[in-house]
């Protein structure tokens, strides 16, 4: 490394700090809400199943926690030949 390179070297601590802040914001929301998401998923499946036959594996519930608002994303795949139980 040239002497010039040494003095202009980019420091690494700010990167460590930034990476941690992004990672932990994500991990805190997913770990803390895993129980809630599982519970919501069960109850949503139960409600849908009352009316439409669905494959449990085709129900996706995802929670994203943002700074201002959190979003709950529910994605349910209903097959074409699903028998509708109630009109």
């Amino acid at each position, binding site marked *: 490394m040239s002497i010039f390179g*040494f*003095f202009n*070297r980019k*420091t*690494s*601590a*700010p990167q*460590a*700090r930034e*990476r*941690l*802040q992004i*990672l*932990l914001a994500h*991990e*805190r929301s997913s*770990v*803390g809400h895993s129980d809630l998401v599982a519970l919501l998923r069960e109850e949503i499946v139960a409600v849908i199943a009352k009316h439409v036959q669905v494959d449990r594996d085709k129900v996706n519930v995802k929670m994203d926690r943002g700074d201002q608002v959190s979003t709950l994303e529910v994605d349910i795949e209903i097959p074409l030949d699903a028998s509708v139980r109630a009109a």
Partner: protein
Amino acid sequence: MAKVIVVTSGKGGVGKTTSTAALGAALAQRGEKTVVVDFDVGLRNLDLVMGAERRVVYDLINVIQGDAKLPQALIRDKRLETLHLLPASQTRDKDNLTSEGVETVMAELRKSFDWIICDSPAGIERGATLAMRHADIAVVVTNPEVSSVRDSDRIIGLLDAKTARAERGERVEKHLLLTRYDPARAERGDMLKVDDVLEILSIPLLGIIPESMDVLRASNIGSPVTLADTRSAPSLAYMDAAKRLAGEQIPMSVPGEKRGFFGKIFGRRAA
């Protein structure tokens, strides 16, 4: 009133055992009856760091299983009569560490000690959750390094969810102990600074322990850092941390921050 402290971190090798021994000895030096308890069943090391490895007869698992009474398993320190060690088992399986057994031992220790310091194993498995289970205070040992900070964040989450206090709707008092800190490298921008770690983990700071040869030297001779050389930088930092645990107001200083003329020039230049 007895206080139960858990020394925990998630990540291994950050200084839990060193910190347990150093804080335990520092609290005992105040004349308060202190016991350090090793929860690392199968990989015990607190006995070695305390210099009591050849005096272990009975251990925590023996007490839990009723093979020995608690006073038989407690080892009194040869240097400080207020300091005691309850070793972990080296040979038994960690499944022998039961939730009920730990609860009984903790209740009994609370009757005769002022400070009960639990040295947690690394990880987030049963040994670690049982070590924190009955804690009133948690000392989260963290190195200024990304993986250690991430694991500490995870442990802080567990302290708020999996402890007896959390289940009763109370709070475990959490403190950050930043270990292996190198002020010069932090100043150069190549190590997370104290404020960076504090901002990310957002728990109050208990102390800053500088990276130092004295820590290895103390473990080599089987002595808590605070007993090996009372004037060394890590020893002074641990003693201040112990005073803060005991409720004293001690101003926080970054050990070894004072630099000479040349240190200042080169430190600034590279920043």
